[in-house]
């Protein structure tokens, strides 16, 4: 065991050395299609990445998720192709997208914006969508200003090799009804995709953004999303990860929610051989609220890890977390929900629930709530359950004439609906699409 741990750390360190060589070569011969304004940021981020390094085997935050394969695939792909690949093969993926009416669709392939596959970005009073590759100097200033100050190692890696991204800026009082659907495609080339999305919701503004990942083959994605919700704003944010079963996918979302604002997040992981998602929400102003919902479904030897951290900084802030996992075969899931109630955050109300359905005896879930509380006047509740399919419900359905296999699928789907229903009210088409995606996988899982 000890040898394994040393091996992991040695291999990660070797990967880092390779990545450093790639970065230095890029520095010496700067590529034309990387925006010049990103260059100082990239260099700073690389220094951060170099110093922090990949997580060690003993790192508590990475206890159940081994990033060695991510580190090695990153090194291999970056050596092979240090820049995002740009050939034009990704059209096929688009036929499989939900038919949501009137959405604004922005497509990225291997991390680069593809205007030819995207809705034409029209100048709109109050809604500004800017691919990093086309940002003018004032927008680039705003983008840089908005980025998280203290990046973790994965955010640093993303920034260090950042070539493109999307800035969504919603002006004060603007209510954007149309869903903004950002599709990140990895088309199967050996490319270390570093998707980047920054979302800025102005005072009293509303918006709905879908961050959607799809891929084929052994893709590699390290996504970063930074979100700012100004006072009295509302954002519905859907993260839908439906990459291939061979993909490695890591994602970070860093969210700041100001006074009287509501941030709602729905995170769905149906894909990935290895998926790790870190969602960090700072409730910065009084009455700020965060509703976080999540669902994952995995089989085979796949692995999904959800790490959530909510910081209640201000009084009368509210957070609600409801995450559900469905696991079969020898799949492994992790749920880590950390709630920190800081001094002065009186009247905080924090609820956390994690429920898991294990469809085989060898599937495994590690669920861990963590509460750190530095004030007295709060309401906090957390619960986690792990169980199998309800045999009484199975018999009820079969006694009505539902074949056993269908009854299992029906109950698994039912378990997921509580999360999908949160989408239904906002966008029935996307909820239907999710059910369709789920139904495709159910025969292999239930």
């Amino acid at each position: 065991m000890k040898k394994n741990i040393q091996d992991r750390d040695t291999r990660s360190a070797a990967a880092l050395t390779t990545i450093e060589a790639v970065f230095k070569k890029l520095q010496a011969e700067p590529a034309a299609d990387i925006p010049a304004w990103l260059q100082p940021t990239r260099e700073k981020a690389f220094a951060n990445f170099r110093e922090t390094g990949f997580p060690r085997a003993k790192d508590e935050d990475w206890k159940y998720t081994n990033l060695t394969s991510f580190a090695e695939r990153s090194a291999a792909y970056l050596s092979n192709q240090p820049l995002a690949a740009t050939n034009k093969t990704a059209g096929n993926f688009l036929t499989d997208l939900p038919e949501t009416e009137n959405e604004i669709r922005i497509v990225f392939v291997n991390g680069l914006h593809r205007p030819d596959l995207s809705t034409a970005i029209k100048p709109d009073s109050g809604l500004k969508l800017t691919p990093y590759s086309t940002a003018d100097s004032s927008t680039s200033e705003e983008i840089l200003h908005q980025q998280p100050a203290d990046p973790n190692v994965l955010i640093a890696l993303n920034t260090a090799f950042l070539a493109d991204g999307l800035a969504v800026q919603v002006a004060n009082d603007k209510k954007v009804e149309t869903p903004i659907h950002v599709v990140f495609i990895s088309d199967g080339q050996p490319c270390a995709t570093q998707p980047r999305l920054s979302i800025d919701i102005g005072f009293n503004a509303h918006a709905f953004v879908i961050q959607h990942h799809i891929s084929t083959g052994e893709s590699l994605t390290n996504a970063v999303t930074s979100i700012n919700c100004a006072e009295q704003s509302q954002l519905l944010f859907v993260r839908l990860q439906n990459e291939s079963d061979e993909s490695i996918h890591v994602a970070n979302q860093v969210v700041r929610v100001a006074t009287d604002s509501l941030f709602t997040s729905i995170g769905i992981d149906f894909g990935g051989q290895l998926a790790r998602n870190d969602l960090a929400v700072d409730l910065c102003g009084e009455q700020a609220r965060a509703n976080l919902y999540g669902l994952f479904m995995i089989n085979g030897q796949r692995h999904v890890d959800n790490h959530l951290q909510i910081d209640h900084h201000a009084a009368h802030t509210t957070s609600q977390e409801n995450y559900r996992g469905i696991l079969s075969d020898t799949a492994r899931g992790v749920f880590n929900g950390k709630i920190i109630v800081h001094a002065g955050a009186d009247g905080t109300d924090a609820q956390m629930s994690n429920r898991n359905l294990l469809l085989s005896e060898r599937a495994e879930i590690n669920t861990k709530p963590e509460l750190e509380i530095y004030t007295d006047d709060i309401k906090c509740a957390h619960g986690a359950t792990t169980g199998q399919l309800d045999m009484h419900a199975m018999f009820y359905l079969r006694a009505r004439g539902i074949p056993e296999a269908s009854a299992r699928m029906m109950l698994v789907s039912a378990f997921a609906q509580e999360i999908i229903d949160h989408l239904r009210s906002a966008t029935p088409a996307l909820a239907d699409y999710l059910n369709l995606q789920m139904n495709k996988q159910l025969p292999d899982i239930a």
Partner: protein
Amino acid sequence: MLNIDNLHATAADTKILKGLNLSIGTGEVHAIMGPNGSGKSTLAHVLAGRDGYEVTDGSVTFLDSELLDMLPEERAWHGIFLGFQYPIEIPGVNNTYLLKAALNARQKFHGEPEIDAAQFLRVIKDKARLMQMEQSFLNRSVNEGFSGGEKKRNEIFQMAVLEPRLAILDETDSGLDIDALKIVAAGINALRSEDRSFLIVTHYQRLLDYIEPDVVHVLAGGQIIKSGDKSLALELEARGYDWVLEETSSA
């Protein structure tokens, strides 16, 4: 229609049914009464194919097929319906969807085409009206948040839609107030027909005030110990079970 011959069944190594014989003809309504723990619910569950019971002896034929060899869903496709004593809540499974899937599975088993969607909707609306259920119930999850009475009405509603050959109703009357009891009884009566049989398991006589049985059986100690016409139910209500038990043991 149903022939039970010398049925022995155990649950968790406890013998519950000990040589039960029962024959139900087509179009007949049979009531099974008996003291607590006599095996009434076990009989209903064994007939429907629930896990957790072991049949150690005897046989059951239903419409000339060996019932005990079939999976629960196959029994449903052959025409068995079990009305549950405690209908289960299934959040996330839509009532209407369940019935449509159940009907289509049965159609498929019999090599018939899928049911017509418009026709199906008409049927479920009619049957919901029969059971005085609001249309909104149809689109809710199965029994989720239903009151006790609503759950039992939903059982009879499902039976009305599925149109079984043999309906086994396990203490459908328990927990019902008098208004709900009348609705449930009316629903059952509406389904009585010359090619449909009923096996009504009940603890009390009062359901039989509304549904007139052809035959009443007393089940005790895992066997049918006495059978008679509807007057037997009235006598049991007036005198309890002790006299039947004494009569049998002295016989």
